[in-house]
């Protein structure tokens, strides 16, 4: 496991669990991986939620987190090279997406529909061409799996389209706001699939 680049806390907890349960070295690596994944993601949710709460956009942050989390499962995308920067990016991106969605609501309703249509079209083109985008740390080896993830991404976008149509027809007071949160989230998902998204992440890594 020493040749895998996990953080000290993951290795330590995995080492303890492996020793107590007589797990093999390969299982110890799996434990370190899942511990690190869980801790990073839970910390990211908590930090983003906290900043969203402070900025008064907790509700929007939660919607953006949910949409992006669902898409990242199937579509993948750009990643930061550092866990610390990842925490900072995760903490900032989701409240910022929520703020931009909320600000868009201040415009006349036609702009909400325009943003939704633009977001769905752009996302469909990008997802169809690029998804799933993997990384050297987590390569997608099987072509069948790659195909399945792409199909699931497109189905998820179809789901977003259905929810968007429902919201645009509904009289729920915050429908336009939710519609905008969905739109900015799928636009973000599309951005991190592209070369520009990867360059943005490289730029943030170089700061």
């Amino acid at each position, binding site marked *: 496991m020493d040749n895998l680049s996990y953080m000290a806390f993951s290795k330590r907890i995995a080492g303890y669990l492996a020793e107590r349960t007589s797990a093999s070295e*390969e299982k110890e690596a799996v434990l370190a*991986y899942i511990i690190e994944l869980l801790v990073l993601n839970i910390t990211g949710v908590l930090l983003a939620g906290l900043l969203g709460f402070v900025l008064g956009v907790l509700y929007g942050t939660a919607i953006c987190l949910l949409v992006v989390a669902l898409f990242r*499962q*199937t579509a993948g*995308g750009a990643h930061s090279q550092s866990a610390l920067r990842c925490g900072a990016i995760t903490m900032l991106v989701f409240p910022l997406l929520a703020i931009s969605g909320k600000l868009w609501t201040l415009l006349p309703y036609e702009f909400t529909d325009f943003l939704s249509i633009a977001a769905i079209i752009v996302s469909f083109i990008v997802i169809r061409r690029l998804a799933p985008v993997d990384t050297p740390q987590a390569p997608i080896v*099987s072509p069948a*799996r790659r195909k399945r993830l792409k199909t699931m991404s497109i189905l998820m976008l179809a789901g977003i389209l259905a929810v968007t149509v429902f919201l645009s027809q509904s009289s729920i007071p915050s429908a336009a706001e939710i519609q905008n949160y969905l739109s900015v989230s799928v636009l973000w998902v599309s951005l991190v699939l592209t070369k520009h998204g990867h360059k943005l992440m490289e730029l943030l890594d170089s700061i």
Partner: protein
Amino acid sequence: MKKSYHILLGLFTAALMLFASVASASACWFAFYQPEVPQSLRK
């Protein structure tokens, strides 16, 4: 007490292993850092 702790630890480890297997089916999670996936989970 010690036996219960050992059983709990075993269950916790098994749950983590199961979760790792499920998590490996996805492209990635929403956080912007991807830990290296162990060889046994790559598909």
